[in-house]
């Protein structure tokens, strides 16, 4: 500690090390939050259901998504990324996941929402397996922290079915 430069360097290094510790503890404190998210998705209408020129099925839906993700926000949350995926099984693939809609929720106040929208991304199958298909609509979310580990979870809602014939 014999010179100005030495002291400044020592201080800076130690300060940054302690900052790393603070951020690690802040991230660890997220494990103690009690999370009770809820969601509901309704299919209001099947707008159209056709076979594309290349032979793949495509369907357009109008969805009503109601969700309360407010309990996912902690003091260490930067934003929550939520998306709705349609999941179903075909003879070719054990699991197909098609993302229909997503949103970035930057604040707790915006996390309780109700939205009626037609699917943001196209629901196209790899093949023509969708007629009469039973599928789940799953709301996935990723909680993105200000520091530390991101964690993801989902709610699976089942019982949806596509019509037996093209419209």
């Amino acid at each position, binding site marked *: 500690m014999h010179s*100005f430069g030495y002291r400044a360097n020592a201080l800076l290094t130690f300060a940054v090390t302690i*900052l790393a510790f603070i951020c690690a503890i802040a991230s660890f404190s997220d494990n103690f939050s009690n999370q009770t998210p809820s969601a509901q998705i309704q299919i209001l209408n099947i707008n159209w259901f056709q076979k594309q020129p290349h032979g793949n099925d495509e369907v357009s839906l109008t969805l009503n998504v109601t969700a309360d993700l407010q309990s996912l926000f902690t003091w*260490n949350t930067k934003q929550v990324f939520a998306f709705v995926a349609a999941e179903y099984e075909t003879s070719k693939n054990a699991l197909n996941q098609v993302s229909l809609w997503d949103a970035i929720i930057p604040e707790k106040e915006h996390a309780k929402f109700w939205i009626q929208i037609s699917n943001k991304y196209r629901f196209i199958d790899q093949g023509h397996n969708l007629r009469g298909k039973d599928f789940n609509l799953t709301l996935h979310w990723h909680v993105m922290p200000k520091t530390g580990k991101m964690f993801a979870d989902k709610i699976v809602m089942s019982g949806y079915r596509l019509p037996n014939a093209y419209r």
Partner: protein
Amino acid sequence: MDWQGQKLVEQLMQILLVISGVVALVVGYTTESFRTMMLIYAGGVVLTTLVTVPNWPFYNHHPLKWLDPSEAEKHPKPEVVSVASKKKFSKK
């Protein structure tokens, strides 16, 4: 800065930074504000810099006792004998 001052600086620096960190963490967690935590910590780092980095007078209260000049003259420095002048025998 003298030796006692340097020791004091090292201790003060570590203690002040750790305390800033702990206070920042506790206040930030209880107010649920990440921003508050960062601001308190930044303030703590600035405070620590002002206290420990400049050469304040109170770090020099135990100055080194250099040897008195009269005492030093009694013990003259040894003369350097150059290797090239081997022909001359230089006796003291």
